């Protein structure tokens, strides 16, 4: 039986694993992918201390290399269930069961869907949640980014080098993205902000041909003639497998030691309720969660 199983090998989980191994815990890190973390889909990261500009995948690769050098055991495994039995935890896939004395949940989050007509129908035919993956298909075309946060504006800037025009559809009259990104976006002549507006439908025949949007202040409606809709309206936590206290959006509630409502289960990174979702805060969560798991194991 392991001392600790860490669910999720993004920045939070990998950092937790490095710390846990250094505390001497018999630790297993599991994830369904060999390269995980939502951050691996980011084209560039400019706010992880020590790295003025680095690709998301490159940074994630460095984290995994570091974990390997630290002696972390990493297993690719698609989880079906997480249960508790007789004071220990059982992590199961369709092929095996693994037991541990404690758990760190670092399962991250996934892009939130708009939930409008056309979104599912046109997925991969104009609807995308990843500009770095699908952006090059839209060379010389008009596209829209929906959202006003960091990821939305980063993608709008990235797309403005590829597409002929990028509309940014945001439901408020101010962006949430950092000022430096806003300044860069406002400097791009082919980025146009569509303020106070929401998307009602994504329309087209075989591929996306337009977005139906309406202004929430004036109630005016209009069609944006775009072939791409890049959606960045927030995150949904991947927390269905664990039975601990969560907020109304499903993010795990922890105390400052990353302890959840269940004894022996800790949470870290984008899957827990936090005021900020960044690589650096995920890594910090992971370190604290590993320390707390270590103290918990010591006390059993």
């Amino acid at each position, binding site marked *: 039986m392991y001392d600790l199983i860490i669910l999720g090998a993004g920045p939070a989980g990998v950092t937790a694993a490095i710390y846990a191994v250094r505390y001497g815990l018999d630790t297993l890190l599991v994830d369904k992918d060999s390269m995980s973390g939502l951050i691996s889909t980011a084209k560039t990261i400019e706010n992880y201390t020590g790295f003025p500009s680095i690709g998301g995948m490159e940074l994630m690769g460095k984290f995994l290399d570091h974990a390997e050098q630290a002696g972390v055991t990493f297993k690719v495994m*698609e989880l079906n269930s997480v249960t508790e039995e007789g004071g220990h935890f059982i992590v199961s896939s369709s092929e095996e069961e693994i037991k541990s004395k404690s758990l760190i949940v670092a399962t991250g989050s996934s892009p939130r869907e708009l939930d409008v007509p056309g979104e599912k129908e046109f997925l991969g035919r104009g609807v995308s949640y990843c500009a770095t*993956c699908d952006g090059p298909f*839209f060379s010389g075309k008009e596209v829209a980014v929906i959202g006003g946060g960091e990821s939305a504006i980063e993608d709008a800037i990235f797309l403005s080098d590829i597409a002929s025009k990028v509309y940014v559809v945001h439901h408020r009259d101010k962006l949430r993205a950092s000022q430096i990104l806003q300044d860069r976006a406002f400097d791009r002549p082919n980025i146009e902000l569509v303020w106070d507006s929401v998307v009602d439908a994504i329309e087209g025949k075989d591929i996306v041909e337009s977005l139906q949007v309406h202004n929430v202040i004036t109630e005016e409606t209009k069609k944006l003639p775009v072939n791409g809709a890049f959606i960045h309206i927030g995150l949904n936590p991947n927390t269905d497998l664990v039975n601990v206290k969560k907020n109304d959006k499903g993010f795990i509630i922890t105390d400052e030691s990353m302890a959840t409502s269940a004894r022996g289960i800790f949470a870290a990174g984008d899957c827990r309720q936090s005021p900020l979702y960044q690589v650096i805060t995920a890594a910090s969560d992971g370190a604290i969660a590993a320390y707390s798991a270590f103290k918990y194991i010591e006390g059993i």
Partner: protein
Amino acid sequence: MTKVILLYASWCHNCPKAEKIWRDLKEEHDFEYEEIDVESDEGQKIAQEYSVMAVPTTVIDGEVAFIGIPSKDEALESIK
């Protein structure tokens, strides 16, 4: 025999994950498997034929089966 085509691109960081899933399955199960770069002539033709605007995309027996990375279980189910 089931024919699986994985469309990928050099710029796509998610594609190696999808490639690994299909390559691992190929070692354990009997099906035809081909990886095609969307930037190649053949890839462009297939992308146009199936209106593909995202990678990785998996085409199974002439139909788009997965856009993005399938889970190993989903991929296995699709070739049964």
